[in-house]
């Protein structure tokens, strides 16, 4: 039904957009090992996005943009490449432009901690496909969280510069955090999942990381105004999509 499709789109867009930002790190990491790790995480999220987009399309074919008759473009690609920016429902944390390595560590920590908590709950949800995607995702996101937690600690306790950069990255991304732990109530009934206590759970995980690292939890809440889940984004997303969609849109009848 429509609620399930909409919810799958949100989860898919989070993964798709976060994956795109991680991919931009390719060939730019501080060490080859981290280049490989970042690509791995980007691939995990891309894989999740594909399954979720397909689920959304199957749950409600009306969400898939119309293409010219006879177009061979599959539903996952129609959704990824032929929706406009205000139809994307991802949280804004996913789209924030890349900064330095501390920035990607913090982004992954916040993103994976919240998504892991969501997918853990969804493993037992009423939709078998979504439950399976969630189960697979839980393993992947556990790795993402551990990787980013390790680096968070390393940077916090490394040098003065790394600690300064880490705190700067945390301050700059923190205002996007509240969006991550809000769950649309409409979906609960459909899926039979209880999202109660989600925020507190993720807070707890993060507090643990902050404590071990000797980093103070930033004050301040979220930002005023509409959010990513409303289709209202930062200025960065339309640029990201312009790049992502340019070739696909130039060839609506293309075979790839």
């Amino acid at each position, binding site marked *: 039904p429509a609620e399930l499709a909409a919810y799958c789109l949100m989860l898919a867009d989070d993964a*798709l957009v976060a994956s*795109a930002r991680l*991919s*931009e790190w*390719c*060939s*730019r*990491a*501080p*060490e*080859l*090992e*981290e*280049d*490989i790790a970042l*690509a*791995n995480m*980007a*691939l995990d999220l*891309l*894989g999740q*996005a*594909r399954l979720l*987009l397909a689920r959304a399309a199957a749950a409600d074919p009306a969400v898939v943009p119309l293409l010219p008759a006879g177009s*061979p*473009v*599959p539903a*996952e*690609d129609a959704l*990824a*490449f032929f929706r406009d920016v205000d139809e994307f429902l991802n949280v804004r944390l996913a789209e924030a432009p890349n900064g*330095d*390595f501390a920035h990607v560590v913090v982004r992954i920590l916040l993103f994976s901690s919240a998504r892991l908590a969501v997918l853990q709950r969804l493993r037992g949800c009423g939709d078998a496909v979504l439950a399976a995607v969630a189960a697979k995702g839980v393993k992947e996101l556990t790795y993402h969280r551990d990787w980013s937690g390790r680096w968070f*600690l*390393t*940077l916090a*306790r*490394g*040098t003065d*510069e*790394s600690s300064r*950069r880490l705190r700067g990255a945390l301050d700059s991304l923190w205002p996007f955090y509240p969006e991550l732990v809000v769950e649309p109530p409409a979906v609960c009934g459909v899926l039979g999942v209880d999202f109660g206590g989600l925020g507190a759970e993720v807070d707890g995980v993060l507090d643990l990381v902050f404590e071990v690292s000797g980093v103070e939890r930033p004050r301040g809440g979220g930002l005023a105004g509409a959010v990513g889940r409303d289709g209202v984004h930062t200025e960065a997303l339309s640029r990201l999509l312009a*790049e*992502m969609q*340019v*070739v*696909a849109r*130039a*060839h609506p*009848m*293309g*075979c*790839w």
Partner: protein
Amino acid sequence: MTLDLQEKFDAVIAHHDRIEPRDWMPEGYRKTLVRQIAQHAHSEIIGMQPEGNWIGRAPSLRRKAILLAKVQDEAGHGLYLYAACETLGVSRDELVEMLLTGRQKYSSIFNYPTLSYADVGTIGWLVDGAAICNQVPLCRTSYGPYGRAMIRICKEESFHQRQGYELLRTMMGGTDAQRQMVQESVDRFWWPSLMMFGPPDEESPNSARSIAWGIKRNGNDELRQRFVDMTVPQAEALGVTLPDPELRWNDERGHYDFGAPDWAELAAVIRGDGPCNAQRLAHRRAAHDDGAWVREAATAFAERSAR
């Protein structure tokens, strides 16, 4: 003593056996190997850029995943090869330094730009194809760690080559615009691919010694011919034209005849005046410099934790 060692080394080479890291080896052999393996490792790392250029613009999510995984594999190949090189007593840091200061080279092909998504396929088909022609014989190279790295790499490279070819075949089955894109890409990459085998043998003085040492197994021209013979039927199957009017089957030789690449262009590219040399090195340098504080932090943290 040294004589005995030299004799033993020569015997291993003569029997096509492997030299291992702890074995004695002539300094020239070691140096040549370091240069060749390092150049190969650098090529994998620099080679991430031209294809990485299109990850963000891949026109389907399936192709995006394939491309991202491929570029990631290249980073992995770089890792194995740096490790193989380290068995010869050079550290990865030193090798990276040699790349960044231009004292060691990487494959000339990566100094050409990628200008359309078809280039991703063409690089898989032609560039990886040429690399495989170069590398398959290196699986039998005389230095053990290098040969074993090559076996693993070659397996992944032929997978990449098939993926590249498959992308082009799919595009050729698509729209006219896609077919044109493939042809335009092949037009740009054909000659640089032939140049990947290096200058003609008579102008490649180090080749003979490398062959004698069992580091290389074949001459440049022989490998180039093998590549052309392998590729022409594939081009026909694909439906693209290779941009060489002299290209035709020679019944007598049992090989395809083909025109001479522009060797002056190759020389310019190797000298540093290719379209992208400066860009590729600048990108690599920026990544290295931007990451310095992270590596320092990791070292400081490891030291603190060890205490």
